[in-house]
């Protein structure tokens, strides 16, 4: 099918982008890497969009060390996340996640901000953000604000971001010395969205587990986390499976996804070097 865009404008900086968004009203739509948006437009799942291209805004790109955390600009490409030394050192979960995301051509264009704003329930980065306790930075006509990742993802393709806001960055707390960060997933083919995936973070403050592709948004599995903190892996698996209400589709049933979440948790715990705290 042929896409039918309503219009296109390129923003020079964030205020310009916000201005363009405001002008476009409900039809306004940020264009970042285009790896989800353009595909949707080409299938006419989205039409009449007034595209606001933010890709030339240099300030939204790149990784900086801000002391306790890393600041990752929204336009940082998946491929850049995958090779960035700061990220590898302080947030290795993101490095590992990139290996599971799509294929090289898509990773060269797709942006971390786009992946977070798009909020595909099967995407890796949203779950990483939740597992890491990351903070999402947004800017709108009323100014800038910060949203805790676990409050950001509301449902399938829906987030706490308002229509007139731009996601500008994500900041991720730096891993503590003994922290382990692990991602496990099952996909039908390399680069496919996961049938189900799981992030495990074991840090001094306790375990964090986020599951993706097992519900409308990443699930922070609090009961499983508590069980892991107590050193009860079987209890954690049972709690995790009870916490999930996964969908069934042509790739896998809810039962399969629930089962796999348990398998992935065991594997992640084993890789992290044992039974928890």
């Amino acid at each position, binding site marked *: *099918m*042929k896409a*039918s865009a309503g219009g296109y404008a390129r923003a020079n900086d964030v205020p310009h982008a916000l201005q363009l968004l405001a002008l476009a009203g409900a039809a306004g739509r940020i264009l970042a890497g285009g790896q989800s948006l353009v595909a949707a437009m080409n*299938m*006419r799942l989205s039409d009449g969009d007034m595209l606001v291209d933010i890709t030339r805004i240099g300030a939204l790109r790149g990784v900086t060390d801000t002391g306790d955390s890393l600041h990752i600009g929204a336009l940082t490409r998946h491929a850049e996340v995958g090779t960035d030394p700061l990220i590898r050192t302080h947030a290795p979960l993101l490095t590992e996640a990139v290996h599971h995301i799509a294929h090289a051509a898509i990773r060269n264009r797709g942006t971390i901000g786009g992946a977070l704003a798009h909020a595909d329930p099967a995407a890796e980065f949203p779950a990483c953000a939740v597992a890491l306790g990351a903070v999402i930075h947004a800017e709108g006509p009323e100014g800038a604000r910060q949203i805790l990742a676990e409050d950001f993802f509301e449902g399938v393709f829906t987030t706490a971001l308002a229509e007139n806001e731009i996601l500008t960055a994500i900041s991720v707390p730096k891993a503590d010395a003994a922290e382990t960060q692990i991602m496990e997933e*099952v996909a*039908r*083919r*390399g*680069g*496919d*969205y996961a*049938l189900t995936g799981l992030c495990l973070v074991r840090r001094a403050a306790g375990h964090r587990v986020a599951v993706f592709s097992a519900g409308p948004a990443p699930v922070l599995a609090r009961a499983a986390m508590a069980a892991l903190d107590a050193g009860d892996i079987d209890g954690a698996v049972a709690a995790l499976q009870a916490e999930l209400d996964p969908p069934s589709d*042509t*790739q*896998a*049933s809810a*039962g*399969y996804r629930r*089962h*796999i979440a348990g*398998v992935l948790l065991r*594997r992640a715990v084993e890789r992290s070097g044992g039974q928890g705290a």
Partner: protein
Amino acid sequence: MTIRFDNPDRPNSYIGKTVPRPNARKLVEGRGRYVDDIVLPRMVHVAFVRSPLAHARIEGIDAAAATGVKGVLRVFTGADLAAVCTPWVGVLAHLKGLKSPPQNALAVDRACWVGEAVAAVVATSRAAAEEGAALVEVDYDPLPAVTDTMSALDADTPVIHPGLGDNLAFRRLHEEGDVEAAMASAHKVVSARFRTARHTGVTPEPRSILVDWNPAESQLTAWHATQAPHMMQSVLAEHLDIPESRVRVICGDVGGSYGIKVHVYPDEVATAAIAKVMGRPVKFIADRLESFTTDIHARDHEIEAKIAVAKDGKILAIDVDDWTGIGPYSVYPRTSAIEGNQVVNLCGGPYDFANYRARTTVVFQNKTPTCQYRAVGHPIAVAITEGLVDMAAAAIGMDPVEIRRRNMYADDAYPVTSPAKMRFEGLSHHASMDKLLTLMDYDALRADQAEAMKRGKRRGIGIASFIELTNPSPFMYGIGGARISAQDGCTVRMDPDGSVVALSGVTEQGQGTEAMLSQVVAEGVGVTPEKVRVITGDTQVTPYGGGTWASRGAGIGGEAALQAARALRHSILEVAGAMLQADAGSLDIRDGQVVNADTGAARLPLEELGRIVYFRGDTLPKGLPRELVQTRHFITMDYPFAFTNGVQASYIEVDTDTGVVTLLKHWCVEDCGRVINPQLVDEQIRGGIVQGLGGALYEEIHYDTDGQLLNGSMADYLVPMAAEMPDMVIGHVETPTLESDLGAKGAGEAGTAGAPAAVMNAINDALRPLGAQVTEMPFTPERILRALGTITD
């Protein structure tokens, strides 16, 4: 003159060698010319309004809003086109009892599957046509949809076409020997239920057609991505009421076909009808999404099957009950009964046994029509046969290789006729198996499997022997009344510069036909392959032929090319003899030079001979024939089909926690007779295997019970991709067919035929110690875990 193909040092020895593909550079540089690259003056685009319902009466079509869209020129309904295009019926006389209702270019009154075209919007751009199509309002009155195959014939299932009486399209029962008695007295009887999923053949280039009607010449020209230009010429002529001679079908570069592009598609015929009505060129390029609901589907079979074996592993009987649902129409003109018919013809194929019963039941459904797709019926028949043989081996505690050895036709048994009444001229099951076991180092692999087991890894080895139908005679379609040519022709001509042009009726779909033709002609004439330009795919230019289907290009088209090339060589030498005052028999042509046959001494370059013939013919003796254009045709006469054979092996690992299957390695030894171009053959086998692996692990079209297609995009319909593909080792045994000098049989489908069964057997080899078995393809992680009993809800 017989070419001694076994002598690699012979002059002009291009047959049997890997030579560069003449079209490779063009395609790699993006300089190919596909239908969508062609832009004609006054050209318009058509987009189709497609039924969102699986079965519905069309109460009315309101095109007012659509015609208001800028660029939209006209909207056609089914009734509009029915006035200029007659309907067709997809039946063939030799498939006794096959029935199907008349089908129109656009649905008239009733839509019968999701995606059936019900109206056409013509506009100055594809985008405008789509814009218009979205605004055409069709008033549908929903009718009950039939979607389940096994209950399609039940009394309480609605009949899709009341005029036909029931939902049965075709049924065939074949019986040989006494199956009941053999089963009753057998040492062991093993039964299983198999399922192969609905597939479609995802071509890199979608279906494409551009049709121009020139009223001043009363000529219709169709640029068409098709496998069978001459068949399409016939079809368009007949249904648009144009003399066949006034229809020209041109097929340039084609981006893959796999059988998808050998059928008559209503939207493509509609495009031609619209061109005729509007008197201007009309282009239709299917997009990926509409391809999923309109390209033919295939392989949607459910099978109940049994095998009886003696204590020593001898197969006593095979009993197969095959069911398939084909959509609401049998596809024209090849019909949708062929796949089921092939299952009956091919089950048990490699084995010498006496008692065979097979029945196929082909029913109508409200889904996309199914028809022939690469290796038609073979992956199903091979999965049934090889699945049963492995299960029987396990039941009597015999090695899977051993049970096959005890049952395969001996290599010196030919000619033989199988219990399915297939006639085999010469096959090499045992030699192929020997070669396979050497290539894969079977014993070492078994040791590796046992070693892996100690590390908790479940690995499995699967073997699948197969036969493959190639080089079809008119017994395939022609005898049923279809204007589908089994013969093929080639014209070879020498131009003044000594170069050669070959015009062939077989076609290039990306598989390398033109490379094959260039080397056959090069050897036949005595020039280098780059001196040969090949022209295919133009009904007004090439000799009449069948095109690409049933692995016939090399075996049929190649032989016609060889004979034509030799005839040209003969004519050239006759002229050369006169020019050199030598006996033509003492001369030869090598590397574009006339030489002395005995010494190889150069006598005359072909360009000099060309100069004389074409510009100074006055210097040649009066009455000397100087026909530097020769045409020959070839048809097989002795056997209805040239069967090939082969054997594949798969080595896999199953993750029993997640159900994920990893393909570790794959082997195939096959016998396509004379190998003309080893690299092309190997790549055909590999590509075919990849499509077979897709069927085994990934590909499955899902419908819900209302007939909605649930996974019609590349995100949801999983095709095999490079990262998951194993290394493939390909070997050959060569048993040339004696029907031709070339001796080539087909190689395009063998890979697809055997791969799914090899993977199934490998998975079951890995799962057997756990008491689990899978027989429903594709073998998704979930199906593996359900077989293991890990998930039960």
